[in-house]
């Protein structure tokens, strides 16, 4: 029975002749598949691709922008750095010059002070010397007269003569004094 059924089946079906029902089913099912993919799947995939392309391009653009900005910042920073360096050098130079100036001023001031002190000393010295000389002169006059009157034994009444003798002596003393003062 099985054999006859198979035999019948073999006669009914020729593998290279299409069956109408299969052609129709094939068309319908493929049509449904095509319709669904066409209407629902493909547009979504295409939209995704578009979005992805846009996103990638946008990302690249953004990255380029960021890079440019970083470059700008770097240049700005470098410029600032150079400026700061120049500024600091200038300040250093100024300070040095100022220090030099202050040093020179101090030096001059000290010198002035020193010379002032020296001058004052000299003036004082001169005054004291003049005073001593005047004192000595007075003493010397008196002593000389006293000495002379003792030696001569007579008082010198004549004022004019007395003064003339003393003056002559003093002039003589004066001409010798500088040599004596220098030695002292």
């Amino acid at each position, binding site marked *: 029975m*099985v*054999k006859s*059924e*198979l035999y019948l*089946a*073999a006669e*009914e*079906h020729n*593998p*290279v*002749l*299409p*069956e*109408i*029902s*299969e*052609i*129709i*089913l*094939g*068309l319908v*099912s*493929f049509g*449904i*598949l*095509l319709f*669904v*993919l*066409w209407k*629902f*799947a*493909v547009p*979504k*995939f*295409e*939209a*995704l691709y578009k*979005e*992805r392309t846009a*996103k990638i391009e946008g990302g690249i653009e953004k990255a380029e922008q960021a890079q440019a900005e970083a470059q700008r910042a770097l240049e700005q920073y470098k410029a600032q750095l150079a400026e700061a360096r120049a500024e600091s050098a200038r300040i250093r130079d100024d300070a040095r010059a100022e220090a030099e100036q202050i040093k020179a001023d101090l030096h001059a001031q000290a010198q002035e002070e020193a010379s002032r002190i020296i001058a004052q000393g000299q003036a004082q010295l001169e005054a004291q010397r003049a005073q001593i000389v005047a004192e000595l002169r007075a003493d010397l006059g008196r002593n000389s007269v006293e000495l002379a009157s003792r030696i001569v034994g007579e008082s010198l009444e004549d004022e004019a003569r007395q003064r003339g003798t003393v003056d002559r002596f003093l002039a003589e003393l004066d001409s010798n004094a500088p040599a004596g003062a220098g030695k002292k």
Partner: protein
Amino acid sequence: MGALVLAEGGDFVPPNTDIFFLPPIFGSVTKPMVLLVLSVLVIVAFFMVAARGLKIVPSRFQFMAESVYDFSRNNIAREQIGSKDFRPFVPLILSLFTFILVNNLFGLIPILQFPSMSHIGFPLALSLLVVYPVWHGVGIRRHGLGKYLKKEIFPPGVPVPVYFLLSPIEVFTKFIMNPITLGVRVFAAMFSGHLILVLFTLAGEYLVFESSSLMLAPVGILSWLFAIAMTFLEALIMVLQAFIFANLAAGYIGRALSEDH
């Protein structure tokens, strides 16, 4: 089925084309019909699930779906039709590729184990009634009927006398043979592949269990090993045939759209 054949007697009965015509499951609905509908459901489900949550950065599943989509779109449609015109044909090529691929692969999936494209009605429906009209239709719409026929039948750059020989061949090739061979190619590959797998499997079964001589059992095991090896080869052929069908369909469309060739 094999058991039925073997039950008839001790002699080995090689499988014949009857293995392709199983008794209907119910009414007049046969296994390949069920498989065909199943394939549509599988593909639709696959792409609808993938298309629902499409992200810029794909998940693993989305990546898989995108790979299939990309392959149909870029490697087949764009490559064959050209980047200018391919967009409207992406759904068609994608459907053709996935439809044939899944139906072929049914031949390897346990329980299903039947390539529906080994029934010639299905591939011929696709090639003769889908690809054929689309291909010439877009050609006629692009160039106008007269110009299109002239371009297809009288390719330029040929000496006039040669047309007497060339034009009948062109007509025969482009309007009769191309669409038929497109369908028959898939059918024949699936048909023979399935037959070979069944043959090796049944022969092994017969040699191991049914034959009287014990010496033949190792040969039967060898036969099974061959069946496994052929299964791998068959897997390759199944993918390849789906690709070839979609690729040729796209190629025909691209040729019809091109200015000259």
